[in-house]
């Protein structure tokens, strides 16, 4: 089915095999992958709308590896994910793009599985896999038939234990990653916009403000020594979590995890750099010329409140109120009323993640292509008006309730995804960043207490123009000059 306004979610990863929409809160509602209930007795005709809760078993091995197991027998598959607490904002300064390049190296050979063998093992057993690199983690996951669970606990442990990479394999993946950058950025209208550009404009700390995909010259400069030291520094069990969700017996799973992961030695404690950002107190603007784009576009962002603070909960609700769904305020004003464009894409940590799966300073970002018969100033003036109205008049309880309904519904999708991608993502990041995956069952508590007053106060502080960064993208050919 073709879609009239389809701007794909950016995937910085190994390969796009599964649409991993881990969309707590503001997600595009058109992708629906949810859990099926085929084997369990679902004979009961009662329709439950009470809270949905996820079983969580959590422990830490002696070597520091965090382990989360979540039993779910609705489909005879298991989703196995390993998240390493190393994202692209931590990579070395002269090696931009290295965290992502390294992600590719994790498929190039380990102690017992040669190049392509890990992928082959997953595929030939009836599974799919992927890996991706994000702000604060790099993840690897596979959805496999549940009778092969032990096989893939072994396989993930094998590559955590050690890699076996040749120069040939590194050169090959440098070629693949450069082609990834070309297809997603360099040869693509709106390529990298605004997701690569906004962090570079809005942030002051290099860690948050460099090119995460990497300069092609830096990608070329990577050596096997870089691979070696990066692995030693960041790919240790004490810097990772393994999540096993699905058709498993937790006791048996624990035995396998201890058998295969338990003997991997801990690495030295991981030192993470200071990634903090100061409060922004002046608007930043820049312009980008995109010679492939036929229509102008706007990308804009605000720094969001500290995660888990009352204002962060309110900001997450504000995201829904501003840009989630066709009843949202920006959609109603910019699309429905003014007709500047056909859609708005926005969110906290958009488009690389959601409001939960990061750990540090973060932006709420938005993107809209608008018609070249309109001026950027007109669009911006209407954005300002929407924001000013929120800051001056706030929201009423009915609008807040509607946002809560969307939130709850979105959470069901994240946790109830049939291939459990959203489930393992949420469990993994809560374990890595909070040491508390059980929090998955009380996520709504902080949202339930958000009041219209807090929404208004948060809009006043965080939707300040002086907290905003804005990029106008202009086609190389301006109108009338064909």
């Amino acid at each position, binding site marked *: *089915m073709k879609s009239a*306004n389809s701007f794909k979610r950016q995937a910085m990863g190994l390969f796009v095999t599964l649409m991993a929409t881990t969309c707590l809160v503001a997600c595009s*509602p058109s992708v629906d992958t949810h859990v099926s209930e085929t084997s369990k007795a679902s004979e009961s005709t009662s329709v439950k709308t009470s809270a949905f809760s996820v079983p969580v078993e959590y422990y830490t091995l002696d070597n520091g590896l965090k382990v989360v197991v979540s039993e779910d027998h609705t489909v005879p598959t298991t989703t196995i994910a390993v998240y390493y607490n190393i994202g692209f904002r931590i990579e070395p300064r002269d090696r931009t793009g290295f965290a992502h390049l390294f992600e590719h190296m994790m498929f190039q050979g380990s102690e017992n599985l040669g190049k392509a063998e890990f992928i082959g093992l997953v595929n030939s057993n009836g599974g799919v896999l992927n890996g991706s690199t994000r702000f604060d983690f790099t993840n690897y996951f596979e959805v496999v038939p549940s009778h092969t669970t032990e096989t893939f606990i072994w396989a993930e442990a094998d590559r955590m234990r050690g890699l076996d990479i040749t120069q040939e394999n590194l050169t090959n993946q440098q070629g693949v990653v450069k082609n990834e950058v070309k297809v997603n950025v360099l040869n693509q209208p709106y390529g990298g916009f605004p997701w690569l550009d906004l962090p570079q404009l809005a942030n002051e700390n290099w860690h948050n403000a460099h090119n995460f995909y990497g300069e092609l010259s830096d990608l070329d400069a990577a050596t096997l020594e870089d691979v*070696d030291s990066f692995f*030693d520094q960041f790919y240790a069990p004490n810097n990772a979590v393994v999540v096993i969700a699905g058709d498993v017996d937790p006791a048996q799973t624990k035995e396998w995890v201890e058998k295969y992961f338990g003997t991997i030695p801990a690495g030295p404690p991981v030192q993470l750099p200071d990634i903090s950002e100061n409060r922004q107190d002046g608007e930043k603007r820049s312009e980008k010329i995109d010679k492939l784009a036929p229509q102008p576009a706007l990308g804009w962002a605000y720094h969001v409140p500290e995660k888990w603070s009352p204002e962060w909960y309110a900001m997450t609700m504000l995201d829904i109120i501003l840009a989630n769904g066709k009843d949202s305020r920006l959609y109603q004003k910019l699309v429905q009323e003014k007709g500047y464009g056909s859609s708005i894409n926005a969110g906290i940590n958009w488009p690389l993640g959601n409001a939960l799966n990061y750990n540090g300073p973060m932006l709420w970002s938005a993107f809209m292509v608008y018609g070249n018969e309109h001026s950027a100033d007109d669009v911006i003036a209407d954005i300002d008006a929407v924001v000013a109205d929120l800051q001056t008049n706030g929201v009423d309880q009915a609008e807040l309730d509607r946002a809560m309904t969307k939130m709850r519904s979105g959470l069901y999708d994240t946790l109830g995804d049939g291939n459990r991608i959203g489930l393992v993502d949420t469990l993994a990041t809560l374990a890595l960043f909070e040491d508390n995956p059980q929090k998955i069952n009380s996520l709504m508590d902080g949202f339930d207490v958000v009041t219209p007053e807090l929404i208004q106060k948060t809009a006043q502080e965080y939707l300040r123009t002086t907290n905003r960064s804005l990029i106008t993208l202009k086609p190389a050919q301006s109108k009338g000059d064909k």
Partner: protein
Amino acid sequence: MKHILKTTLSSLAIGVLSSSVAIPAFAKEAPPAPATPRNFKLPKVSNYTLSNGVKVTLVPYGRVPKATVRAVVDVGNINDGDMTWISDLTAAMMEEGAGGKSAAELAVGVSEMGGSLNIGVGLNQTFAVMDVLADSAPDAVSMLADVLQRPNLPESEFKRVRDGLIRNVSVGKSRPQSIADSKFAEALYPDHPYGRSFPEDGALETYTLNDVSAFHAANFGGARTHIYVVGKFDADKVKSAIKEQFGSWDAGPQPLDLPSNLNEQRQLILIDRPGAPQSTLRLGKRVPVMDGSVELDAMNTLLGGYFSSRITRNIREDKGYSYSPGSSFRTRFGARNWQQNADVSAESTGPSIKEILKEIDLMRSEPPSEKEVDGIKNYMNGIFVIQLASRGGVANQLARVNLHGLGTDYLENYVGKVQGLTAADFTAAAKKHLNPDDMTLVVVGPIDDVRAQLEPLKDRFAAE
């Protein structure tokens, strides 16, 4: 060779394992063998038809309290006639309010159901989809009835909606992948709506609201509509909502049967994109329509259809020419084609095509190994389960089975058919259906830079 290894005691014990085989210097540990496969039960499906022809499929499914309500109407670009995308414009206008409610009022209503409303148009069908909290499933049925049967089609919104579509076409036509797709479809489906991916420049501007109203009136009706409800919902309430909301809709016309003749001629199509760092490739041809057999699918999977496929291993994992190459079938009602897609470094354009052709030739001349065949069987059966593991997936699969008339037992028999595949099936399917001499090749890239690379391939493709 670089070897990064965290040394532990257990890794030293490996040599003891397989003593009966000649042990290489560094004996490798084999992965633990899989246990016995577990049963996968298909969801329970109930089907019925209203007197006006509306078909209904209900599937209780899932562990979260949500439901997908999907109305699939047999109207799409195939019904466009000479007004390409009039179906898209009609669908876009149907989102602008219905049953007397404005678009904004609909949007608020959808939100209160915790859901979304999307209307998408494909070549054969229009999909009006709502995904909502379980309790709201009957209300979603009502809203879809309004949207499909009683759209407001307001004059006040028409120009804005049409301008939006025009803008989206211009963006679509700027993407090298869309350009390649549209040229490729044009070559494979000449003189048929399947070959017209985009309206001509300036065409949409001439479409009027009257055209939209007329298209809606002529094409939407009960006989073309199939409603799928998948998820956790109260079946009695949903059934009565469907009867009440859809039972009195006019039957309208039957689905359009517009055969697409096999009149393709192989072509070499070069589209210049000066300075582009990559060439976007489409290589393929028409193949027989879907009939429920699995041989072609299996052959395609091994050739280029999954991560471990031969072409991906070759041009990505061996040569590094491309990031995400892949082959697939594009399936329309009454027509189907196979295509290999790849975005390759400009300097690797010729070599990439050569390697792809080499893999096709090999698939046609030599049977795959037993290990490859077993791997494909497992993969296809695994994907079958993964694709059915969601509300949307279930609705998709059932709709696909129905569109192509694969029969009610198709899903039940699928795994068994896959298990019956042999190595000879792969060779036979490739030999019969993937003759490169009949294939069309589209290259969207820096043509002047890559022309010399294409020279050696000239004898395999007709002149431009």
